[in-house]
């Protein structure tokens, strides 16, 4: 798809997502949509380092959780508004991502994966023991029923752009997901993307060909962490309550890496497909059976794709279409 058509589709989707908040009264689609969009962003964020760069990161939940708690700190300190909470969450995670990357990116393969897992445990332990943000008991963040910005009523039952906070957050999540897709597509088409692909294929050869591998990995880690942090930054406002065990849950890390592996890691479309497939199935399972089986679904899909379609859903399509030709 050429760039003009791509950006036109993005703009159309922004419009469609706003119109759904206007015309749909039932709140469940916004709840389910928010969850799936959150997964899409997480999958795309993970894929920047894991898919484009080939560095498997088990610590995504740490960046998500730190983003969420960054928002809580901003709220506690100066009663920050939602956009500021999201920004602080993203910035906080980006800084931690940069620092962590600098310390761990000289490690390769399984050693890097273990280091990122350790980051998750350390971050959760720190928050557990930090009373200012509620410690193990968690923290509340109560959104306003009526939200206005420079005299424009953003959320309000009568005359507001959105009827309630859930609709606003769904729309915001749509914007963030589309923005993340735009960023990922730009990376793929850039020198940065080609450099990351080279280091994924063979790091020693890439370095010998002049690719500054450490610098590229640091950029990828910081970007990936920032996007995870932004997703985390919106989370306390959505949930109104947050506690460390769920904010730093290993489920988040597993989901974040499973979705790109299921969809395909080479382009932005793979993680989006993986997230839509997995997110939809998890929503169906949650409604019809129980959310407890969500991780089982992820596990079964992950194992099946690793064995039968190691290049993900997109790889499978490519293989099938080649055979037909």
């Amino acid at each position, binding site marked *: 798809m050429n760039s003009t058509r791509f950006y036109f589709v993005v703009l159309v989707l922004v419009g469609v997502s706003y119109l759904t908040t206007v015309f749909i009264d039932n709140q469940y689609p916004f709840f389910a949509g928010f969850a799936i969009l959150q997964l899409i962003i997480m999958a795309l964020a993970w894929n920047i380092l894991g898919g484009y760069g080939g560095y498997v990161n088990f610590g995504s939940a740490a960046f998500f959780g730190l983003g969420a708690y960054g928002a809580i700190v901003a709220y506690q300190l100066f009663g920050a508004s939602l956009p500021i909470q999201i920004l602080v969450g993203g910035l906080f995670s980006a800084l931690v991502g940069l620092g962590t990357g600098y310390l761990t990116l000289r490690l390769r393969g399984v050693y890097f994966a273990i280091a990122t897992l350790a980051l998750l445990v350390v971050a959760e332990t720190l928050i557990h023991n930090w009373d200012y943000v509620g410690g193990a008991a968690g923290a509340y963040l109560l959104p306003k029923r009526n939200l206005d910005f420079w005299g424009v009523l953003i959320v309000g039952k009568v005359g507001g752009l959105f009827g309630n906070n859930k609709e606003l957050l769904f729309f915001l999540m749509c914007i963030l997901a589309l923005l993340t897709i735009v960023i990922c597509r730009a990376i793929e088409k850039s*020198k940065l993307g*080609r*450099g990351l*692909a*080279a280091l*994924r*294929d*063979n790091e*020693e*050869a*890439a*370095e*010998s*060909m*002049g*690719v*500054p*591998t*450490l610098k590229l990995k640091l950029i990828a880690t910081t970007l990936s962490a920032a996007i995870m942090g932004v997703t985390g930054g919106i989370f306390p406002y959505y949930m109104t309550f947050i506690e460390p065990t769920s904010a730093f849950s290993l489920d988040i890390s597993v989901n974040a890496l499973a979705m790109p592996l299921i969809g395909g890691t*080479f382009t932005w479309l793979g993680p989006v497909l993986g997230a839509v497939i997995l997110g939809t199935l998890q929503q169906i399972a949650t409604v019809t059976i129980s959310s407890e089986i969500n991780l089982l679904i992820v596990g079964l899909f992950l194992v099946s794709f690793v064995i039968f379609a190691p290049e993900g859903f997109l790889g499978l399509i490519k293989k099938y279409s080649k055979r037909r030709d």
Partner: protein
Amino acid sequence: MLEIKNLTKRFGGFTALSNINLDVRSGERLGLIGPNGSGKTTLINCICGVIQDYEGEVYFDGESLNSLAPHKRARKGISRSFQIPKPFNSMTIRQNLIIPLEYAVQEGIRSHIDMESEVDQIIENMQLSELADQLPTNLTQIDMRKLELARAMVAKPKLLISDEAMAGLSSSEIDDILKILIALNENTNVTIIMIEHIMRAVMSFSERVVCFDAGEVIANTTPEEVVKVPAVERAYLGE
């Protein structure tokens, strides 16, 4: 052009290189021989920066390389091919060749280049035109070696280190690679260090041959003379 002074590299208690001193002239064709484990690949890893915790100094064009990462050494004009080919498998041959141009050339040696024409030219020189849009996984052994050399040469380096580019090739394929290396040296005046076990190739390619054994230089002379050195016969050629 390349000066190696008192270079020593130890892996724990094992000394892989011991006090190596070596000068390589601009435009020279140097053969590096020696039995397996004698330190040849360790030496080129020290030159390219893959190994940096060595003792001694490596100078290139009068400048010390000691503190430079491998990618910065590549931008100074040092390029290599690998003993076991390491192509970028997710990219076509053409895309493989774009990487050094984008990074080594644009950020280091020259600022404005026509990448497409540079890539087309080297693809044609290496006789890879028909395969240009294929993935490396489909290549034969000889074409894989050509790709390695093309990728190393596309940035127009000053020094090319060819690490056993002829390993596993048939006699006629060895001649092909030999022709390519000699043509590269004659047409672009690139200095070439060739590590090779195939003595026929070393003898016809090299202007000078350096022989390693147990991390030390045991001979440094012309191809005609090196085969007569008793230490080389004992350590490498067989008596």
